[in-house]
């Protein structure tokens, strides 16, 4: 069947139940009730601290075929996922579904366990490197499911993604299971993705390298949601978890893209007192933060709130009073982690609060402006952030779909050319974010406004930036780099890309050349 953006979605895909084709950003109306974890009895002074991960695995009753989850706030410094999967493998448990909020390169360590059948299915936001290649290879026993951060929260809360055991890396944890992310040697800041897992998994295991006497405060994940606690030597490598303040790019091309993006915001009509904004952590986004800061100061404008993955430039804006509050689902650097610890206006939030389209109001719905990055974009404004030019999974959807749908103005920044490859093309290989939710594409050569947004195009005419048709950008890209040959793929679906509402926006077929 063909979905609403013209993508062919097979009627039967191994392991995917209730296939619903994408119909539009707010077309699918859900029914049913939220799910919940099992009810249990907890007696006074029960002991939650166990001696080892193995003991915790036994205590949870983990069995073949169950689903386990992890959070990715430790980014490329994560030890927890690898440690737990190794322990599970030792016990001979097989056929598990691995459902982390995302996967990083460091998690490649578990590939042998996938090959041995310990893990036979993956549901996540994305993957890179060897893991991405494996998920695209068609060698997985079950089709991989790729979801946005909001989509994952939705799937968990609706029971579509049923987590049997959630393993939560806890930078600080007390002896009764209260957890926060801002203390300890492995502090990562917000635990926004883990919050949903903790609230809905049947069993929750906290793994910590900073066990403290009861009670810990502040509390991010409460004792009421934690079954067992294991203390280990290290849950992550601080160097991989968070760097010092992320550096603003010096790449002139990124700076130019950032300048155009900032000017587009300035002239969009949304740049006014108490507007709200989300910026990414990519080079152009960080640079845009600097330019935006200058414009806000110049024009005496302050933002009501900032959102999403948090970085040092955002914190500076908070500290200088240019942003009144920050809602934080993930931190990228040390200044952000420290800020969340000390500043009451820097508020931790769950992935559901952030972006779940099927609760009573994700904060993305209140967002005015978001800047997002892209691997490639097409003339219908569809965006791919997941597959590389060879069709292999190499990125993550993250909050892309969620913020693009929720924000009044969604700006996608991308270079026109990456090396010898055009990035504005006829049709993206994989659609992650539908073009109808993307308003402006910014490249170093020109800025294209979605024809649906005539109002924006009229506004931007006043701005001193090159506004072009998206087709002109594509033609320019092809003129420089030539038109790329389509990636040859088999019929075999290696992964599905869900839209945030659970419908299928695209499928990733196994490339013939891997």
């Amino acid at each position, binding site marked *: 069947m063909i979905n609403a953006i013209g993508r062919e979605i097979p009627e039967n895909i191994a392991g995917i139940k209730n296939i619903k084709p994408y119909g539009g950003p707010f077309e699918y109306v859900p029914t049913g009730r939220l799910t919940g974890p099992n009810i249990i009895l907890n007696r006074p002074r029960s002991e939650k601290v166990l001696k080892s991960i193995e003991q915790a695995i036994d205590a949870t009753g983990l069995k073949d075929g169950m689903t386990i989850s992890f959070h990715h706030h430790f980014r490329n410094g994560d030890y927890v996922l690898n440690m737990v999967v190794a322990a599970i493998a030792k016990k001979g448990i097989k056929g598990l579904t691995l459902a982390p909020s995302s996967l990083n390169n460091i998690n490649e360590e578990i590939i042998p366990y996938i090959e041995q059948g310990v893990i036979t299915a993956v549901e996540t936001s994305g993957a890179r490197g060897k893991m991405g290649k494996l998920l695209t290879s068609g060698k997985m026993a079950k089709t991989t499911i790729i979801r946005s951060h909001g989509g994952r929260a939705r799937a968990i809360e609706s029971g579509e993604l049923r987590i049997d055991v959630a393993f939560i890396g806890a930078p600080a944890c007390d002896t009764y299971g209260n957890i926060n992310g801002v203390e300890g040697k492995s502090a990562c800041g917000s635990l926004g993705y883990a919050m949903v897992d903790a609230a809905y998994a049947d069993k929750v295991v906290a793994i910590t390298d900073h066990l403290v006497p009861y009670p810990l405060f502040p509390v991010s994940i409460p004792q009421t949601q934690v079954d067992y606690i294991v203390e280990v030597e290290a849950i992550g490598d601080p160097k991989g978890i968070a760097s010092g303040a992320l550096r603003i790019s*010096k790449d*002139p*091309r990124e*700076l*130019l893209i950032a300048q155009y993006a900032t000017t587009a915001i300035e002239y969009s009509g949304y740049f006014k007192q108490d507007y709200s904004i989300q910026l990414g952590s990519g080079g152009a986004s960080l640079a845009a933060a600097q330019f935006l800061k200058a414009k806000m100061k110049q024009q005496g404008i302050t933002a009501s709130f900032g959102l999403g993955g948090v970085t040092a430039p955002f914190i500076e804006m908070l500290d200088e009073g240019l942003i009144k509050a920050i809602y934080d689902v993930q931190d990228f650097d040390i200044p952000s982690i420290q800020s969340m610890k000390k500043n009451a206006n820097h508020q931790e939030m769950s992935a559901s609060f952030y972006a779940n389209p099927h609760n009573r109001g994700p904060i993305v719905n209140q967002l005015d402006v978001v800047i997002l990055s892209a691997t490639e974009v097409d003339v219908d404004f569809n965006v791919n952030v997941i597959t590389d030019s060879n069709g292999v999974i190499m990125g993550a959807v993250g909050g892309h779909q969620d913020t693009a749908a929720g924000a009044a103005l969604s700006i996608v920044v991308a270079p026109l*050319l990456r090396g010898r490859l055009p990035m504005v093309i006829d049709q993206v290989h994989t659609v992650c974010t539908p073009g109808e939710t993307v308003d402006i594409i910014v490249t*170093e050569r020109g800025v294209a406004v979605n024809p649906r947004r005539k109002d924006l195009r009229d506004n931007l005419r006043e701005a*001193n930036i090159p506004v072009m048709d998206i087709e002109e950008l594509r033609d320019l890209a092809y003129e*420089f780099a030539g038109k790329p040959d389509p990636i040859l793929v088999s019929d075999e679906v290696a992964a599905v890309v869900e839209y945030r509402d659970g419908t299928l926006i695209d499928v990733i077929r196994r490339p013939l050349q891997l």
Partner: protein
Amino acid sequence: MKLRRTMMFVPGNNPGMLINAGIYGADTIIFDLEDSVAISEKDAARHLVYNAMKAIKYPCEVAVRINHISTPFGYKDLEVILAVKPDLIRLPKSETAADIQEIDAIITAAEIKHGFVPGSIKMMAAIETAKGIRNAFEIATASPRMVAIAIGGEDFLADLQTSRTKDGKEFHSARGQLILAAREAGIHAIDTVFGDVNNEEDFIAETTRIKEMGFDGKSVVNPRQINITHQIFMPTTKEIDHAERVIAAYKESLARKSGVVSLNGKMIDVPVVKRAERTLAYANAAGKNNGRVKL
């Protein structure tokens, strides 16, 4: 009026930079075949620049800095590059009028050979020695193709047997003589590069200084220096307002066929009108013309 506030050097042997050279808003890009290209890559750079100029429409003036004709590369550079009709040839280390005239003859021959409009390829000279500075006016007027003279900083300092200081005192005399020669010849005076691209503060100070001295622009080595330079060269709102009033009064007097131009009871002479035109040209280029006058 042609502006040369920023003349950006782009190494001729870097394909990525050649492709993107035109996007940063420099008034002139200078594809460099000389100092930024290693001897082993001279050949490749020459042909890369040739092909880039053939294939890409740059939205600004395009210059090529050739190697000196005393090297084995200079004539070859001209032979290849002139075929794609650069707007401007930049000569390194010019010391005498004869240096200019020799290249002028080669360009003239190339224009005839390729059927280009005679005189359409311009020239500028970099002066990099004390001798060159002494001959600056002769160099500036050696050919009608000459549109600018510039200081080539590092070589000049080597010749002077000194080094850079924070306030640039080592350049004072040369800059002064260069600007006088350029003004007398009626062509542009371009300042030398500021190589420490991360030192924004000193770059701003130096560029402000040379703007105040009367220079028309600066050679830059990084796109990040372009906007800063353009900002420094941007006239103030007050200057623009005044210039607009001068031009309006001048146009009105022309319409009245009156030989006398006055504004608020004060006589306006030709240099004032020219200065006003220059101010508005800089304002227009920076997109800050108060929305009224377009030149």
